[in-house]
């Protein structure tokens, strides 16, 4: 028998294996939508929707809450509850939607809401919703009838409906003592499979109570590289890709949308020289925000004057944006130095790698601006874990003076979701100790209507103008690349919620 030379055999082998495996990669099909995000979800448990990576797959796709917040103005709108009212200062009544079923066939009623509340508040389960949105609140729910529910609070909670928008309701069959990886909700899509490391598959739920989705199958996949996510839309492997870096998001398919995040530098005002207000003002005056927009930050980012975007209840439109005035910054530093403030002391700028696109570059630029104004600033970029140690208390008393790169998300639409933890004496991220500000925030938290708005506006003004313990940067935008044949306009909630039901093919 004639022997085949090794090189020919190898060539044939490679060719045959390629030929056997060649199949055109998945392309757009009218019954299928693929969305690519940055990371795999950490959890698909309905009580873990406080983390955006989980929420964007779960919320209003697989699971739903009693109410939603309008992306237009943050007002509370019906979902699984059709109406609600405050019975007394500590009691709220919710009327539930009839004829709703979970994906596992069980009926949605008052007892399902009670089961979900119980899970969310169970310390042993450590649900994100219980630990964050519902933190410090004891909720006691009572069944009036299958479609009427009373929720009693231990303290006055004027925005309980807003908070209930974060509590997704899973099937009563969801285990009470452990987290689930196979959630059954009432949403327009049911979970088909979560293939670890690869994808989450969803299929339209035939028994959905509302408008049915137009695309019957959806797949969520994740890729770490922005350039790869963008390329996936170009090739038709995905129809929507989120969090495209500014340098990749330059085509007409790239849509920038406000993402409810505000970037800022938190100033540690307790340590010299930053404990001197003139130094903190100089720091703000030294940053050329106009120079950063359209270069390192996206051109649609808005200069921030406070730590929440205009869509948040309590936003104060009268706080002036910091101007860029390096000469004034220098004179303020000189005045502080003359009074014995150690302005030459090294200040550490703590940054977090990847907190937003170009996060390192932005701090490199700011470090240079601060140096030009006379600051002695050193940049230290950290990964998330050590950065969190700098963000959260407790801190060492002997720490170096520092400013910390961070961004604050407020998609819930009320200032109470931002202020207490970050700007009160007891807040776990607060570098400010001020009894007056504590009282303003506490009073605002209990108030309603215009009084609430006035108190929160005062608090924001005090933080930005009187205390100056922040250097606000920008109300941020995120870029999503959307295929030309897809109808989808991302809104302010798109960072936390992919509204699959609203997406269709042209």
């Amino acid at each position, binding site marked *: 028998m004639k022997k085949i030379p090794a*090189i020919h055999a*190898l060539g044939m082998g*490679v060719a045959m*294996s*390629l030929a*056997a*495996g*060649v*199949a055109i*990669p*998945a392309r757009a099909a009218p019954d299928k939508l693929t969305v690519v995000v940055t990371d795999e979800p*950490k*959890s698909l448990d309905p009580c873990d929707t*406080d*983390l955006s990576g989980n929420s964007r797959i779960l919320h209003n796709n697989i699971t739903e809450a009693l109410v939603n917040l309008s992306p237009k103005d943050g007002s509370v709108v019906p979902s699984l509850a059709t109406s609600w009212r405050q019975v007394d200062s500590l009691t709220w009544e919710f009327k539930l939607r009839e004829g709703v079923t979970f994906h596992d066939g069980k009926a949605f009623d008052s007892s399902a809401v009670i089961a979900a509340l119980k899970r969310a508040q169970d*310390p*042993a389960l*450590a649900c*994100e919703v219980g*630990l*964050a949105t519902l*933190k*410090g609140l004891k909720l006691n729910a009572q069944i009036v009838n299958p479609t009427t529910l009373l929720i009693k609070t231990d303290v006055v909670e004027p925005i309980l409906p807003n908070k209930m928008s974060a509590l997704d309701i899973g099937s009563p069959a969801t285990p009470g003592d452990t*987290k689930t*990886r196979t959630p059954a909700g009432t949403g327009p899509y049911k979970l088909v499979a979560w293939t*670890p*490391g*690869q994808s989450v598959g969803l299929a339209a739920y035939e028994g959905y109570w509302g408008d049915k989705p137009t695309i019957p199958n959806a797949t969520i*996949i*994740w*890729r*770490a*590289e922005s*350039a*790869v996510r963008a*390329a*996936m839309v*170009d*090739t038709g*492997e995905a129809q929507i890709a989120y969090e495209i870096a500014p340098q990749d998001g330059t085509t007409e398919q790239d849509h920038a949308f406000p993402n409810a995040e505000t970037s800022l530098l938190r100033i540690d005002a307790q340590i010299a020289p930053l404990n001197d207000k003139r130094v903190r003002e100089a720091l703000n005056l030294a940053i050329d925000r106009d120079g950063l927009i359209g270069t390192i930050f996206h051109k649609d980012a808005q200069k921030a004057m406070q730590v929440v975007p205009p869509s948040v209840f309590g936003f104060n439109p009268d706080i002036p944006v910091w101007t860029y005035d390096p000469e004034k910054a220098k004179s303020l530093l000189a005045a502080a130095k003359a009074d014995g403030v150690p302005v030459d002391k090294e200040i550490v700028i703590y940054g977090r790698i990847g907190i937003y696109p170009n996060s390192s570059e932005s701090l490199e630029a700011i470090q240079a601006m601060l140096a030009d104004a006379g600051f002695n600033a050193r940049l230290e970029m950290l*990964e*998330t*874990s*050590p950065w*969190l*140690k700098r*963000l*959260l*208390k407790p801190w060492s008393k002997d720490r170096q003076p520092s400013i910390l790169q961070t961004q604050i998300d407020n998609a819930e639409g009320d200032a109470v979701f931002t202020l207490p*933890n970050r700007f009160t004496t007891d807040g*776990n*991220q607060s570098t400010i100790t001020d009894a007056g500000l504590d009282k303003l925030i506490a009073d605002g938290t209990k108030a309603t209507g215009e009084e609430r708005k006035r108190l929160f506006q005062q608090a924001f003004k005090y933080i930005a103008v009187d205390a100056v313990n922040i250097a606000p940067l920008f109300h941020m935008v995120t870029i999503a690349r959307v295929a030309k044949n897809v109808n989808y306009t991302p809104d302010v909630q798109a960072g936390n919620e992919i509204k699959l039901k609203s997406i269709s093919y042209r």
Partner: protein
Amino acid sequence: MSFTYFLKRAAFAALALAALMISAFFLVRLTGDPVNLYLPVDASEAAREAMRVRLGLDHSLLAQFSDWAWDILSLDFGVSLWHNRPAMDVVLEALPNTLALGAIALALAFTAAIVMGSIAAVNAGGWIDRGVNVLSQAAASVPDFWLGLMGVLLFAVTFSILPTSGFGGPIYWVLPVACLFARPFGTLVQIVRGSMIEALNATFVRTARAKGARDGRVTFVHALRNALLPAVTVTGDLAAQFAGGGGVVEVVFGFPGIGKLLIDGILKRDFAIVQASIFAVAVVIFVINILVDMLYGSIDPRVRVE
């Protein structure tokens, strides 16, 4: 290779593995407390402390070590914090993907390097040799992530003949394999070329030619067999590196392998995943080393490991 030798190697490997795992236990804990990463930033200190208690992180390091060592002896690597599943289950899902990816890339690189290195050696000093030199130097020095992104741009976006990324049929393996292929190919070509030039000038080759052996036989049988040993040694080292995953390549292509798992495990302070991954990779490296020893013996009968 005798059975006794194998047992001795296994005993040394077990000792090394124990030392490695003990080091891994303490080193991953030096990277910091995972609790802050796993709870919302707004969570109270009480909730953080409750999680520390639940994870046993409130115990002294020595007490944690003793609990961990006891579990490891029964091959219980614990539950992944991020995946909320037994860590070894997660690792064993990813490991075969990485091993297959590495094996294909390395087998192709080894084979291609032998051919190209031999051709370059036979034509040493000529334009073919210079061309192979440039190609192999470029392949050995090009960064994985750049090659990956260029591959996506060219073959997925421009020519639409390959998928950008993902995991599935053979077509999904082409770009990751091509990226992992480059560096070992470049390195091995250089090694094969050098050892082949040496072998082709050796006395036994002159003897073979004097006896009338044909050029092909002299090059690919007499000289190559003797020139292979250095290439096999380096391939063994490369295989050990690949067993730890093609980190950047796996991240760029969303390839669910052990490299990506390990990187994520470190970034997310998922101690159980890191420790289970290190254990699994160390076992694979031990097996690779044994296989390399066996291969030495079969390539060159003069080599007998005792």
